[in-house]
């Protein structure tokens, strides 16, 4: 059994009262009073529909909400759900809330660790973590994420979504292709606030030494996915549906880069023995559609994106000199000279840029957080080109463009290995 000293006595007492469970739903919250009531109801409804005979518990790990979020979680009665959905559970559905004190950077990690520890103590067979902000969550999401774990012995179920072609560009232009090229598995949403996992894998991850290495907060979900890949666990994907956009707008670029790219770069060093021997990539088994793309018109300020790229290239030259090779920097400066219509940040150069950033991150050529921040203007340049290329593209064309980028990441992997091993 893993270390559970960080759990409060009251929380432990509540867990002991529950006993053992089959299903555990983890709900990390922090000031989510606006959405949490309906989300808990949807979760309860999902459990009643999908797992009426199983012993289930909802664990709310709250980071010190001041808007009454924990009270709302525990206050939602299963009786509110039953009449509406005409469903009945054969077992008691428990809802437990615990508070932890944590600074904002490690809040995610503490919440997730609490959920994992609770799953361990309750000997949960299948667990799911749900986002407290998803306004359009459906009861079916619970079963879609839990059933492969509970019935088929899958260790990790990551979601896929229906999203606009210009949403989640950090995922489609960096995270997905790079993870695919390096770790050899095509997981579309390696960083997601919703995912299902087995109690066995959760327990295994809880015992790993990831909680004290400084990255436990930001990007713990990605760390979890990468641990499943490197641990050769059984992984699958489930198509959930359309993801709420309002939640996504709240994420700014630099914090998003820290959570995703920072976590990925920091994982590359310990995972080197695994990814350095991988060639090519394999598809992950997927229930439902792998990815659906919305094509509705969306205004994008490409001019501003390009201006921020140009500003980065001119103002951060000294920083880029420490991170990038002279040839790459020269090419970036060349494309910065192009006019608005001719501007093009090619995939080949983007991949080389990302790989050089990864190698520099490993060598800590400058402060690692500064390396991640320096990637932001370059990412904006890449987004400018991606938006331009896919402005009038169909769903298939968008997918084909993403696939080409993925293959570019795979083809240039030997270059990453080369600069990774070089001393300078």
């Amino acid at each position, binding site marked *: 059994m893993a270390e559970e000293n960080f759990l409060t006595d009251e929380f432990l007492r509540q867990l002991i009262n529950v006993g053992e469970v089959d299903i555990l739903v983890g709900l990390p919250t922090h000031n989510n009073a606006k959405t949490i009531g309906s989300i808990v109801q949807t979760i309860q409804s999902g459990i009643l529909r999908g797992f009426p005979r199983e012993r289930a518990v909802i664990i709310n790990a709250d980071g010190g909400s001041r808007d009454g979020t924990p009270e709302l979680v525990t206050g939602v009665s299963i009786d509110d759900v039953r009449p509406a959905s005409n469903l009945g559970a054969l077992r008691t559905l428990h809802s437990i809330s615990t508070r932890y004190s944590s600074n904002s950077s490690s809040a995610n990690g503490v919440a997730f660790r609490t959920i994992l520890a609770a799953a361990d103590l309750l000997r949960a067979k299948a667990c799911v973590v749900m986002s407290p902000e998803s306004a359009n969550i459906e009861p079916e999401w619970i079963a879609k994420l839990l059933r492969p774990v509970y019935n088929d012995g899958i260790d990790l179920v990551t979601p896929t979504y229906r999203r606009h072609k210009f949403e*989640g560009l950090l995922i489609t232009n960096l995270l997905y292709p790079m993870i695919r090229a390096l770790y050899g598995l095509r997981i579309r949403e390696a960083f997601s606030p919703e995912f299902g996992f087995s109690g066995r894998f959760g327990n295994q991850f809880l015992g790993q030494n990831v909680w004290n290495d400084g990255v436990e907060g930001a990007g713990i979900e990605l760390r979890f996915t990468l641990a499943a890949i490197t641990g050769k666990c059984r992984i699958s994907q489930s198509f959930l549906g359309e993801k709420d956009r309002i939640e996504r707008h709240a994420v700014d670029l630099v914090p998003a880069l820290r959570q995703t790219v920072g976590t990925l770069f920091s994982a590359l060093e310990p995972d080197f023995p695994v990814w350095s021997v991988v060639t090519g990539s394999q598809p992950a088994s997927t229930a439902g559609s792998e990815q659906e793309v919305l094509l509705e018109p969306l205004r*994008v*300020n490409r001019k501003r994106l390009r201006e921020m790229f140009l500003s980065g290239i001119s*103002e951060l030259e000294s*920083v880029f000199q420490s991170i990038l090779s002279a040839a790459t920097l020269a090419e970036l400066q060349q494309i910065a000279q192009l006019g608005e219509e001719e501007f093009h940040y090619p995939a080949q150069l983007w991949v080389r840029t990302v790989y050089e950033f990864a190698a520099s991150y490993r060598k800590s050529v400058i*402060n690692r957080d*500064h390396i991640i*921040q*320096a990637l932001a203007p370059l990412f904006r340049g890449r987004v400018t080109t991606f938006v331009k290329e896919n402005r009038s593209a169909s769903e298939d064309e968008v997918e084909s463009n993403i696939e080409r980028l993925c293959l570019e990441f795979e083809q240039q992997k030997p270059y990453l290995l080369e600069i990774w091993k070089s001393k300078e």
Partner: protein
Amino acid sequence: MREMIISELSEALHEIAKGFAHFLPRVLVMLIFAVLGWLIASVAKVILRSVLRLVKFDKLSENAGASQLLSKAALPSATEMLSRFVFWVTWLGVILLGVNVLGIFGLQEQVAKFFLFLPRLFVAMFIMFFGLLAASFLSRATLLAAVNANMPSPRVLSLAVRSIIIVFVLSIVFEELGLAEQTMLVAFGIAFGALMLGLAIAFGIGGRDLAQRFLEKRMVRGKKEENEDELSPL
């Protein structure tokens, strides 16, 4: 008379010879100290150089911006500079110990002063190095934050942060060394005050519109500016 002169002369020569005989061993001791000091200093230099290379001190110095300063002044690397500095301080220290043995009046006091000054010199160097490191780190952090926030003149902001920190560090270093304390204090006060006044005037007059726009954006709930964040990265 002649005998008297010869007697006085021989007595004087005898005294000189006696004095010289008394002094010569001390000189020899001092020379031995000098040779021993050179050996100790050389060993210290080699050990320090190896340790600094092992901990990649040059890299740290590069990050602090110290390497660039040394390079511009056509000086060797930070590791080499520090190794040489330790070599000379050690050798000089041991030589001065040897000189102390000579028993020359007044010199002992100066030697004691030199040894009392050494800790302050090291502290000053320590402050200088980490001050440069902090200046470099914070100015780069400012530059990146300003670029990513799309603020005007990021490099000016970054340079201002670096300059303020360096001026502050220099004033502490001079105070630690006890060099022109009053002058430095007054100079720092004037420079810092002038800088703040200049910034206040510049922002007050030059940035009036900018401040207005900033406050409007913060205080007035108006039309949301179209920006790239509407494209959620995640």
